[in-house]
Protein backbone atom coordinates (compact mmCIF):
# COMPACT_ATOMS: atom_id res chain seq x y z
CA UNK A 1 0.00 0.00 0.00
CA UNK A 2 2.75 2.42 0.99
CA UNK A 3 4.63 1.72 -2.22
CA UNK A 4 1.52 2.42 -4.30
CA UNK A 5 0.89 5.83 -2.71
CA UNK A 6 4.57 6.74 -3.05
CA UNK A 7 4.50 5.61 -6.68
CA UNK A 8 1.51 7.83 -7.40
CA UNK A 9 3.32 10.85 -5.95
CA UNK A 10 6.52 10.14 -7.90
CA UNK A 11 4.56 9.69 -11.13
CA UNK A 12 2.75 12.99 -10.56
CA UNK A 13 6.09 14.71 -9.99
CA UNK A 14 7.48 13.24 -13.20
CA UNK A 15 4.41 14.41 -15.10
CA UNK A 16 4.94 17.94 -13.76
CA UNK A 17 8.56 17.78 -14.93
CA UNK A 18 7.38 16.68 -18.38
CA UNK A 19 4.86 19.53 -18.48
CA UNK A 20 7.50 22.07 -17.55
CA UNK A 21 9.74 20.73 -20.33
CA UNK A 22 6.84 21.05 -22.75
CA UNK A 23 6.31 24.59 -21.52
CA UNK A 24 9.95 25.48 -22.13
CA UNK A 25 9.56 24.43 -25.75
CA UNK A 26 6.15 26.01 -26.34
CA UNK A 27 6.78 29.44 -24.82
CA UNK A 28 8.78 31.83 -26.91
CA UNK A 29 11.21 33.99 -24.99
CA UNK A 30 13.75 33.58 -22.18
CA UNK A 31 11.70 35.43 -19.63
CA UNK A 32 8.55 33.44 -20.38
CA UNK A 33 10.41 30.16 -20.53
CA UNK A 34 11.80 30.70 -17.05
CA UNK A 35 8.29 30.51 -15.61
CA UNK A 36 7.92 27.01 -16.98
CA UNK A 37 11.34 26.05 -15.67
CA UNK A 38 10.45 27.30 -12.18
CA UNK A 39 7.54 24.87 -12.17
CA UNK A 40 9.82 21.84 -12.31
CA UNK A 41 11.96 23.24 -9.50
CA UNK A 42 9.08 23.77 -7.11
CA UNK A 43 6.22 21.39 -7.64
CA UNK A 44 7.95 18.62 -9.59
CA UNK A 45 10.75 18.29 -7.07
CA UNK A 46 8.30 18.66 -4.18
CA UNK A 47 6.05 15.83 -5.37
CA UNK A 48 8.94 13.47 -6.09
CA UNK A 49 10.44 14.11 -2.67
CA UNK A 50 7.06 13.57 -0.96
CA UNK A 51 6.93 10.19 -2.68
CA UNK A 52 10.43 9.38 -1.47
CA UNK A 53 9.55 10.52 2.08
CA UNK A 54 6.71 8.00 2.13
CA UNK A 55 9.19 5.30 1.07
CA UNK A 56 11.82 6.42 3.62
CA UNK A 57 13.05 4.01 6.29
CA UNK A 58 13.72 6.16 9.36
CA UNK A 59 13.68 9.70 10.69
CA UNK A 60 17.08 10.61 9.29
CA UNK A 61 16.12 9.74 5.73
CA UNK A 62 13.03 11.90 5.98
CA UNK A 63 14.93 14.80 7.55
CA UNK A 64 17.50 14.68 4.74
CA UNK A 65 14.77 14.80 2.11
CA UNK A 66 13.18 17.81 3.80
CA UNK A 67 16.57 19.54 3.90
CA UNK A 68 16.89 18.88 0.18
CA UNK A 69 13.64 20.74 -0.53
CA UNK A 70 14.63 23.55 1.83
CA UNK A 71 18.03 24.21 0.26
CA UNK A 72 16.66 23.91 -3.25
CA UNK A 73 13.87 26.38 -2.55
CA UNK A 74 16.36 28.77 -1.01
CA UNK A 75 18.83 28.70 -3.90
CA UNK A 76 16.65 28.45 -7.01
CA UNK A 77 14.97 31.91 -6.74
CA UNK A 78 18.37 33.58 -6.52
CA UNK A 79 19.54 31.85 -9.69
CA UNK A 80 16.42 32.77 -11.64
CA UNK A 81 16.57 36.33 -10.34
CA UNK A 82 20.12 36.67 -11.68
CA UNK A 83 19.14 35.31 -15.10
CA UNK A 84 16.23 37.74 -15.27
CA UNK A 85 18.37 40.68 -14.23
CA UNK A 86 21.06 39.94 -16.82
CA UNK A 87 18.46 39.57 -19.55
CA UNK A 88 16.83 42.85 -18.53
CA UNK A 89 20.14 44.71 -18.52
CA UNK A 90 21.46 43.37 -21.82
CA UNK A 91 18.35 43.40 -24.00
CA UNK A 92 16.99 46.90 -24.55
CA UNK A 93 14.28 45.89 -27.01
CA UNK A 94 11.18 46.48 -24.94
CA UNK A 95 8.75 44.87 -27.36
CA UNK A 96 10.69 41.63 -27.47
CA UNK A 97 11.02 41.68 -23.72
CA UNK A 98 7.32 42.01 -23.05
CA UNK A 99 5.66 40.13 -25.88
CA UNK A 100 8.40 37.74 -26.90
CA UNK A 101 8.37 38.29 -30.66
Amino acid sequence: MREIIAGIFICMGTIVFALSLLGIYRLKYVMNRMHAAAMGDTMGLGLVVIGLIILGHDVFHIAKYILMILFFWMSSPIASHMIGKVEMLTNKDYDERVHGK
Partner: protein
Amino acid sequence: MYLILLILWFIFSGKVTLEIFLFGLVICGWLYWFMTKHMDYSIQNDLKLIAKIPRFIKYGIILVWEVIKSNLAVIRIILSPGLEADPTFYTFETDLKTEVARVTLANCITLTPGTYTVALEDNKYTIHALDKSFTEGIEESVFVKQLRKLEE
Protein backbone atom coordinates in the same frame (compact mmCIF):
# COMPACT_ATOMS: atom_id res chain seq x y z
CA MET B 1 20.67 28.89 15.99
CA TYR B 2 22.61 26.57 18.29
CA LEU B 3 19.70 24.11 18.22
CA ILE B 4 19.53 24.28 14.43
CA LEU B 5 23.25 23.52 14.19
CA LEU B 6 22.85 20.59 16.56
CA ILE B 7 19.88 19.17 14.64
CA LEU B 8 21.84 19.49 11.37
CA TRP B 9 24.75 17.64 12.99
CA PHE B 10 22.47 14.76 13.96
CA ILE B 11 20.80 14.61 10.55
CA PHE B 12 24.10 14.41 8.73
CA SER B 13 25.64 11.87 11.09
CA GLY B 14 22.67 9.56 10.56
CA LYS B 15 22.44 7.95 14.00
CA VAL B 16 22.45 9.00 17.65
CA THR B 17 25.10 7.62 19.98
CA LEU B 18 26.71 9.13 23.07
CA GLU B 19 29.96 9.75 21.24
CA ILE B 20 28.33 11.64 18.37
CA PHE B 21 26.21 13.60 20.83
CA LEU B 22 29.21 14.81 22.85
CA PHE B 23 31.23 15.70 19.74
CA GLY B 24 28.21 17.57 18.40
CA LEU B 25 27.82 19.59 21.58
CA VAL B 26 31.45 20.71 21.48
CA ILE B 27 31.64 21.44 17.75
CA CYS B 28 28.32 23.31 17.63
CA GLY B 29 29.31 25.30 20.70
CA TRP B 30 32.55 26.38 19.05
CA LEU B 31 30.77 27.22 15.79
CA TYR B 32 28.12 29.23 17.61
CA TRP B 33 30.78 31.17 19.50
CA PHE B 34 32.46 31.94 16.17
CA MET B 35 29.16 33.14 14.67
CA THR B 36 28.37 35.43 17.59
CA LYS B 37 31.85 36.90 17.47
CA HIS B 38 32.40 37.44 13.76
CA MET B 39 28.91 37.43 12.23
CA ASP B 40 25.74 39.25 13.19
CA TYR B 41 24.29 36.58 15.46
CA SER B 42 23.66 37.14 19.13
CA ILE B 43 21.94 35.20 21.88
CA GLN B 44 19.34 37.93 22.53
CA ASN B 45 18.21 37.97 18.90
CA ASP B 46 17.96 34.20 18.82
CA LEU B 47 15.79 34.16 21.94
CA LYS B 48 13.47 36.68 20.28
CA LEU B 49 13.30 34.48 17.20
CA ILE B 50 12.22 31.46 19.22
CA ALA B 51 8.96 33.22 20.14
CA LYS B 52 8.21 33.66 16.43
CA ILE B 53 8.56 29.99 15.45
CA PRO B 54 4.78 29.39 15.04
CA ARG B 55 4.59 32.34 12.64
CA PHE B 56 7.49 30.98 10.59
CA ILE B 57 5.72 27.63 10.31
CA LYS B 58 2.50 29.39 9.27
CA TYR B 59 4.44 31.35 6.66
CA GLY B 60 5.91 28.13 5.30
CA ILE B 61 2.50 26.52 4.97
CA ILE B 62 1.10 29.59 3.17
CA LEU B 63 4.13 29.57 0.84
CA VAL B 64 3.58 25.92 -0.11
CA TRP B 65 -0.12 26.59 -0.75
CA GLU B 66 0.63 29.60 -2.97
CA VAL B 67 3.23 27.59 -4.90
CA ILE B 68 0.69 24.83 -5.59
CA LYS B 69 -1.98 27.32 -6.71
CA SER B 70 0.30 29.21 -9.09
CA ASN B 71 1.73 25.95 -10.44
CA LEU B 72 -1.74 24.85 -11.48
CA ALA B 73 -2.34 28.24 -13.12
CA VAL B 74 0.90 27.98 -15.12
CA ILE B 75 0.09 24.41 -16.17
CA ARG B 76 -3.27 25.63 -17.44
CA ILE B 77 -1.56 28.30 -19.56
CA ILE B 78 0.98 25.83 -20.98
CA LEU B 79 -1.66 23.30 -21.95
CA SER B 80 -4.05 25.86 -23.47
CA PRO B 81 -3.95 25.48 -27.27
CA GLY B 82 -3.16 29.08 -28.25
CA LEU B 83 -1.01 29.94 -25.20
CA GLU B 84 -3.38 32.68 -24.04
CA ALA B 85 -0.77 34.49 -21.98
CA ASP B 86 0.02 38.18 -21.85
CA PRO B 87 3.48 38.68 -20.35
CA THR B 88 3.92 42.01 -18.58
CA PHE B 89 6.29 43.96 -16.43
CA TYR B 90 4.86 45.41 -13.27
CA THR B 91 6.33 47.78 -10.71
CA PHE B 92 5.16 48.27 -7.16
CA GLU B 93 6.39 49.61 -3.85
CA THR B 94 6.28 48.01 -0.47
CA ASP B 95 6.27 49.37 3.06
CA LEU B 96 8.30 46.57 4.62
CA LYS B 97 11.06 48.07 6.74
CA THR B 98 13.87 45.57 7.23
CA GLU B 99 16.12 44.35 4.44
CA VAL B 100 15.61 40.72 5.40
CA ALA B 101 11.85 40.97 4.95
CA ARG B 102 12.23 42.65 1.57
CA VAL B 103 14.63 40.03 0.28
CA THR B 104 12.38 37.27 1.60
CA LEU B 105 9.43 38.79 -0.24
CA ALA B 106 11.46 38.99 -3.46
CA ASN B 107 12.53 35.37 -3.09
CA CYS B 108 8.99 34.20 -2.44
CA ILE B 109 7.71 36.07 -5.49
CA THR B 110 10.41 34.40 -7.57
CA LEU B 111 9.74 30.98 -6.09
CA THR B 112 6.10 30.93 -7.16
CA PRO B 113 5.95 30.11 -10.86
CA GLY B 114 4.31 32.77 -13.01
CA THR B 115 6.02 35.72 -11.40
CA TYR B 116 9.60 36.59 -10.64
CA THR B 117 11.48 39.59 -9.38
CA VAL B 118 13.72 41.24 -11.93
CA ALA B 119 14.99 44.18 -9.89
CA LEU B 120 14.77 45.29 -6.29
CA GLU B 121 15.88 48.82 -5.39
CA ASP B 122 15.20 50.19 -1.92
CA ASN B 123 11.48 49.50 -1.79
CA LYS B 124 10.67 49.28 -5.49
CA TYR B 125 10.10 45.86 -6.99
CA THR B 126 10.04 45.20 -10.72
CA ILE B 127 8.45 41.86 -11.44
CA HIS B 128 7.84 39.97 -14.65
CA ALA B 129 4.58 38.08 -14.87
CA LEU B 130 3.56 35.43 -17.37
CA ASP B 131 -0.02 36.73 -17.42
CA LYS B 132 -1.77 39.86 -16.17
CA SER B 133 -3.88 37.87 -13.73
CA PHE B 134 -0.75 37.03 -11.70
CA THR B 135 -0.13 40.68 -10.87
CA GLU B 136 -3.55 41.35 -9.35
CA GLY B 137 -3.29 42.25 -5.71
CA ILE B 138 0.41 41.57 -5.46
CA GLU B 139 1.09 44.69 -3.32
CA GLU B 140 -1.16 43.32 -0.61
CA SER B 141 -0.55 39.60 -1.06
CA VAL B 142 -0.66 37.15 1.84
CA PHE B 143 3.15 37.19 1.89
CA VAL B 144 3.22 40.90 2.69
CA LYS B 145 0.71 40.55 5.52
CA GLN B 146 2.59 37.66 7.08
CA LEU B 147 5.97 39.39 6.77
CA ARG B 148 4.59 42.52 8.40
CA LYS B 149 3.53 40.42 11.37
CA LEU B 150 6.96 38.74 11.46
CA GLU B 151 8.71 42.11 11.52
CA GLU B 152 7.13 43.28 14.74
